[in-house]
């Protein structure tokens, strides 16, 4: 009986190794950093509201067996372009956020469709392709924003334009929509600000994803995720479904980016989107998801653990070695390291599963 318990505990630990490891890091880091509990709770709530939506955008391609969507950066670009437009037009408050989202939809659909098409040509190499695609589109984005805006695309708001007369400035002040959603329904519990409205939006997305899994389309995606060949034989249009999965993810990423930036309040025109993909993926993986498995609970657990680590590591580094920079490097290292580990584990298990089938036969022979 006891042995059995031991076994289940071990199994649990094995299956949740990454979140547990992070729990340990965080548990050691919190006292080292010297932050107060109040401060940390506030930070976590802010970061949950800021990042969860972006991370949620990753779930659908995972469901469709396309791995981690490094191409979500494209959606972020779409969202940013929406924000640039509303800032240019001086649309303020909630209508501004709403309009930016609406503008981002067609952009995301085009970008997502393109990504889907390309990924269909690179089956089995989706991740590295979407990863490079993000870089490639970053060039196109720069072409549009840095050279197209103010020349081909009219921008009337001179405060957006670089002094040379065209191109968007490196930072765009989003004062017009800054935290308007977060502060829509003010709530303060024990001195901690809770952005209720943002959380409502996040809950709506969660409900959408849960509902979506129950639709025919969601079922088809799950089928494709398991075996493209079988799904194809059953008459499911695999390529189209995969494109839809990426388009949905891109749209959600665009929305997520808008929510993220309305909380931050400034848009780094040429940098904001770059890191978003990596941090979102790292957060999801920290939450215990893997390349082919992702749940909503992974998202929230991941955001909490990953960002706790993020908040405390500079101070912990400073208090430990006297160098805050070390902590900063540490968190960069952890972000990349965690993705590496997840990718390695996934590829390794896939390879192992193939080889394991042999051992059954050997056992059968030995029993004779």
């Amino acid at each position, binding site marked *: 009986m006891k042995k059995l318990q031991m076994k289940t505990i071990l199994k649990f630990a094995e299956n949740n190794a990454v979140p547990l490891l992070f729990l340990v890091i965080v548990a050691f880091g919190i006292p080292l950093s010297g932050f107060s509990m109040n401060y940390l709770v506030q930070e976590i709530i802010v970061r949950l509201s800021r990042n969860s939506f972006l991370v949620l955008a990753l779930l659908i391609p995972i469901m469709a067996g396309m791995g981690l969507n490094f191409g979500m950066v494209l959606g972020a670009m779409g969202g940013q372009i929406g924000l640039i437009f509303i800032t240019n037009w001086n649309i303020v408050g909630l209508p501004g956020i709403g309009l930016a989202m609406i503008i981002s939809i067609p952009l995301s659909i085009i970008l997502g469709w393109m990504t889907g098409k*390309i990924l269909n*040509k*690179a089956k*089995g*190499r989706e*991740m*590295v*392709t979407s*990863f*490079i*695609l993000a*870089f*490639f589109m*970053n*060039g*196109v984005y*720069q*072409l549009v924003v*840095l*050279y197209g805006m103010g020349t081909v695309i009219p921008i009337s708001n001179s405060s957006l334009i670089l002094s040379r007369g065209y191109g968007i400035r490196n930072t765009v002040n989003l004062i017009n929509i800054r935290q308007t959603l977060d502060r829509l329904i003010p709530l303060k519990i024990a001195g901690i600000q809770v952005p209720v409205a943002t959380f409502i939006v996040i809950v709506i997305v969660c409900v959408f994803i849960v509902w979506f899994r129950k639709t025919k389309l969601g079922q088809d995606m799950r089928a494709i995720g398991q075996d493209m060949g079988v799904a194809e034989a059953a008459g499911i249009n695999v390529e189209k479904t995969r494109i839809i999965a990426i388009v949905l993810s891109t749209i959600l990423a665009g929305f997520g980016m808008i929510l993220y930036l309305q909380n931050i309040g400034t848009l780094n025109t040429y940098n904001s989107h770059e890191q978003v993909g990596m941090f979102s993926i790292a957060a999801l993986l920290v939450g215990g998801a893997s390349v082919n498995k992702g749940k909503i609970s992974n998202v929230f657990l991941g955001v909490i653990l990953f960002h706790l680590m993020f908040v405390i590591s500079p101070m912990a580094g400073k208090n430990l*070695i006297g*160098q805050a*920079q*070390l902590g900063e*490097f*540490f968190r*960069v*290292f952890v*972000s*990349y*390291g965690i*993705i*590496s580990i997840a*990718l*390695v584990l*996934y*590829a*390794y298990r*896939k*390879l192992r599963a193939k080889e394991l089938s042999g051992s059954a036969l050997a056992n059968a022979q030995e029993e004779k």
Partner: protein
Amino acid sequence: MNVVRKIIEKTGWPRLIIGLFLLSLFILAPFVGVKISTSLKDTVVRFGMNGILVLAMVPMIHSGCGLNFGLPLGIIAGLLGGTMAMELGATGPISFFIAILIATPFAVLFGWGYGALLNRVKGGEMMIATYVGFSSVAFMCMMWLLLPYKNPTMVWGYGGTGLRTTISVEGYYLKALSNFLKIEIGGFTFPTGMILFVAFLCFLMWLFLRTKTGTAMTAIGSNPVYAKASGIKIDRIRTISVILSTWLGAVGILIYQQSFGFMQLYMGPFYMAFPAVAAILIGGASINKASILNVVIGAFLFQGILTMTPSVMNSIIQTDMSEVIRIIVSNGMIIYALTRVVKGARK
């Protein structure tokens, strides 16, 4: 008509477009007042600087490990070699060879571990290579801060600990190769030594690919099952290819530094794999086939674009669009290669 189509198919549209683009830059250059001779000279220098980093792609492509996005690992070995050579007090051109000597064991060690990892993740090498590169760079960021370097030219002035982000190699191996047998033509120095060294390493690689081991490597990239059936220990050969690639990365960055004049630590090596990958693809390589010729052509074309675009574009539209063009050209080329269906090779 058919011949034209066949040539286009064989070359591939992106390669063709890039080629035509470069050609048009050369044609346009005189009209907008850009001297072709200067650009060519710049191209030669940059070719020499980057050639070995591109060459580093070859062994892993041959052994079927795909494009070495994990090149930063090799670069780190080179940086360790360079910094340690300086720390040990080696000065002058000889310090270049000492740096290579010190970098070698690191490159072998890193390459061995990296190769062992890649052997366990067959089929997913490229993505993992990318992230191995990224995380090792991030890890070394911490190490550069912590390692007990003492040489005042390298260490932050105020703290006394931790290396600077940019370290000048002046007085050490600056132009160690470039100045060897250099030829001065009208204010421009042709870096004979560097080009010779690059050519020498290319020749060694050419020789290596013709040895028994090199042949086995090519066979693995072409068809690993065939290779296995012919009694080849695939994992071993793959590891050798990764070690070679890593070592070439280490040497490559040292050559780069001796010409450039500075050593860039911390996030410096982060994106260094991408231009090298793009260059060899532009040169005509695919994910599992590459030749020395691909390296030479690719490095030349790619560096040509990098030198020509800023000057020519700047003269035409008074804007420096080179950065954007570089991003689009290099990553576009990589995507193209990734989406090509590799026939007759591994699934």
